[in-house]
């Protein structure tokens, strides 16, 4: 561990003191379930007063977004200071006060492409968790081929009128505003007629419908736009150059998902199977074929975990291919599906209980079904393999 410089050391003590004085004890307990997560927004119901107070205090200090510029409400910290803050928060067990698409996706895009006025209008409410955002990208006819999107924004002089539909919009029914890709020039070639716009979900003409998955309830929604008014000043980046903003965001999203193949706290499969199914006289799983499948899975899982470690080490050393995140996303999602297939095999008939006293509302089966989406969302496995082929292996073709 690198020792702090004097300035960093001072920052560390000050941060620690502030956290100790301001982080309520309820917010020092680990996040155990979805219910403990704070998303903020106009509709948000705080779990308890402590959650509200914690968000307010961190938001005021800009420490929900430690490295964003002070000018827009951010913490104005350097990367090193932000690392120190994260360490001190971890040491005290402080929860992250806010989960937010605004922080992860829109904010970085605004910082890069937005006007000063847009940053002033939208960043501070993100910082304080007052406005919750959703992402309007995919459409029923524009998934992998996102650039073929058809949601239309017609120029009406001082504003646009938007008509169309989005799908897979996470938390659209809970969100306050949306960042949305719309077609502003239908005559232009595919990628070049798209704009990145922002508007209020409370606007007339906006409606949402939740999507039930094979695994049950999900945050996903269909979102419908029926003559929705969008202000011209709410176009981010250049008109008809929204694809650049979208691409920038997608890199962030893929890296976010890429690390999800390795869930911390995931029980070792082999030992779980031994517990659930029993072992023979030699201490081996009673089912030799399942045993072999689990053993091979654990080899691949170990190799993947080490590959993620190596990718980070290489990045720190200025090595590695930028498109390698596609390899991690592809392999991590396929590994997750394999894990859950093996969990279902191991769980046998008990894992099939969808409604029963001990079935936990079908938790095993639901988790297994949900993982089937991992290789589809955030860029399908097939798309990731295309990216690897084109950008890393330089194989020819469109």
């Amino acid at each position, binding site marked *: 561990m690198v020792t702090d410089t004097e300035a960093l050391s001072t920052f560390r003590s000050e941060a620690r003191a502030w956290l100790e004085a301001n982080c309520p004890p309820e917010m020092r307990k680990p996040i155990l379930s979805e219910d403990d997560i704070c998303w903020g927004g106009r509709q948000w119901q705080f779990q308890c007063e402590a959650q509200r107070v914690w968000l307010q205090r961190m938001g005021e200090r800009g420490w929900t977004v430690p490295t964003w510029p002070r000018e827009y409400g951010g913490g104005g910290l350097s990367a090193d200071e932000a690392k120190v803050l994260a360490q001190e928060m971890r040491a005290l067990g402080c929860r992250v006060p806010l989960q937010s698409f605004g922080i992860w996706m829109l904010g970085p895009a605004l910082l890069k492409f937005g006007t000063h006025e847009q940053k002033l209008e939208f960043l501070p409410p993100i910082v304080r968790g007052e406005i919750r955002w959703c992402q309007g990208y995919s459409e029923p006819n524009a998934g992998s081929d996102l650039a073929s999107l058809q949601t239309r924004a017609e120029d009406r002089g001082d504003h646009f009128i938007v008509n169309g539909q989005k799908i897979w919009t996470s938390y659209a029914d809970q969100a306050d505003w949306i960042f949305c890709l719309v077609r502003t020039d239908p005559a232009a070639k595919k990628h070049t007629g798209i704009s990145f716009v922002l508007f209020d979900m409370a606007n007339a003409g906006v409606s949402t419908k939740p999507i039930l998955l094979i695994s049950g309830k999900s945050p996903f929604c269909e979102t419908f736009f029926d003559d929705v008014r969008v202000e011209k000043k709410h176009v981010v980046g250049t008109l008809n150059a929204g694809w650049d903003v979208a691409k920038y965001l997608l890199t962030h999203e893929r890296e976010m998902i890429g690390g999800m193949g390795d869930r911390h706290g995931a029980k*070792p499969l*082999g*030992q779980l*199977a*031994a517990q659930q199914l029993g*072992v023979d006289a030699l*201490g*081996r*799983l009673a089912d030799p074929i399942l*045993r*072999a499948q*689990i*053993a*091979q899975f*654990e*080899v*691949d899982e*170990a*190799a*993947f975990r*080490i*590959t993620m*470690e*190596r990718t980070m*080490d*290489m990045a*720190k*050393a200025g*090595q590695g291919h930028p498109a*390698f995140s596609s*390899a991690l996303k*592809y*392999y991590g999602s396929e590994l997750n599906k394999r894990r859950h297939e093996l969990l279902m095999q191991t769980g046998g008939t008990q894992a099939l209980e969808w409604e029963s006293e001990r079935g936990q509302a079908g938790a095993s089966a639901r988790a297994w079904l949900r993982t089937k989406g991992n290789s589809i969302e955030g860029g399908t496995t*097939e798309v*990731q*393999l*295309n990216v*690897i*082929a*084109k950008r*890393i*292996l*330089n*194989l*020819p*073709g469109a």
Partner: protein
Amino acid sequence: MALVLTEEQSMLRDSARAFLADHAPVAQLRALRDSRNPDGFSRPLWSQFTEMGYTGILIPEAHGGLGLGHVEAGQVMEEIGRHLSVSPWLASGITAATALVRGGTTAQQAEYLPRIASGELIATLAVDETRKHLPAQTAVRATLTSDGYVLEGQKTFVLEGEVAGLFIVAARTAGQAGDTTGITLFLLERDAVGLQVEDLVLADTHRAARLNLDQVVVAKGAVLGEVGQGWAVLQAALDAGRIAAAAELLGVAQEAFDRTVGYLKERRQFERIIGEFQALQHRASVLYVEIEMTRAVVLKAQQALDEGSAQASALVSVAKAKAGTTATLAVQEGVQLHGGMGMTDEFDLGFFMKRARVLQEVFGDAAFHADQLAQQKRY
């Protein structure tokens, strides 16, 4: 320890690559085979190899080696894999030398290690007894008499057996097949009475031997380590050999892959470059990821061995298993994607396929190591 090479390690890799490309390219393997070279390797190359210092990478400086580690050895082994270079180094300077370093007395080390480092002596482990590598099943018997120990039984798949001057033989002084206690390592010289060496030419042109031990007497001083306690030293030697084989497999896979991707970019059929076909692109991408994952886990295991980490043995098993399955896929795809040409002897890819198959069986294949990991995790 970060999973990246140091500058010195990268330089060693580059120099090994340049040396082997010049002195031991794939064409040399073909020439060794076609000329039916009696030693199974080129003596001139072996001299140059030892002059470069590679032979002594894992041997302490006090005994004429370079005193480096498994990461360094792995850089050279990977290049050996890429070029299909043939030498007794894996058997001698890596595996047998490690047994001596870990288990030998000062006198035993002084007697053998300098000559192994200089290339003058080729030493090799004699452990396998059946088709599959199962060291705990050691059944060759060593009985104590007034003359010393009497070895009786057969060993197989002894790498470089034909040219070896020293065999390190795993034999049982107590217990039964399946026990890891009761195994003793013996230093057996070539001229021992009752030792018969049957030379085998393997599918990849490399040489191995079957040993027949017919009442072979070895002095008590020829015990390597403690009587009945040879398992730990044996495992250390095997792990050194396994991770080296894994590095060589990685090189075999990488080269087979690189040549295949090159071919996909050149070959025209149906009025286009075949590399445009998505089905082929996806197969190449899948293989690319497998190779990168193998690379990461081989480096991790090498570093763990160098650090003396408690996880090292398990990581070696992950690495050997992964390298085996990846190389198997790489050479399979290599031949397939080269079409009819890939099936010709004239084309080099067949050699990569043969070497991968042999290396899988060296010191435990993917199935063996997956089973080892499962046993350690108690399922």
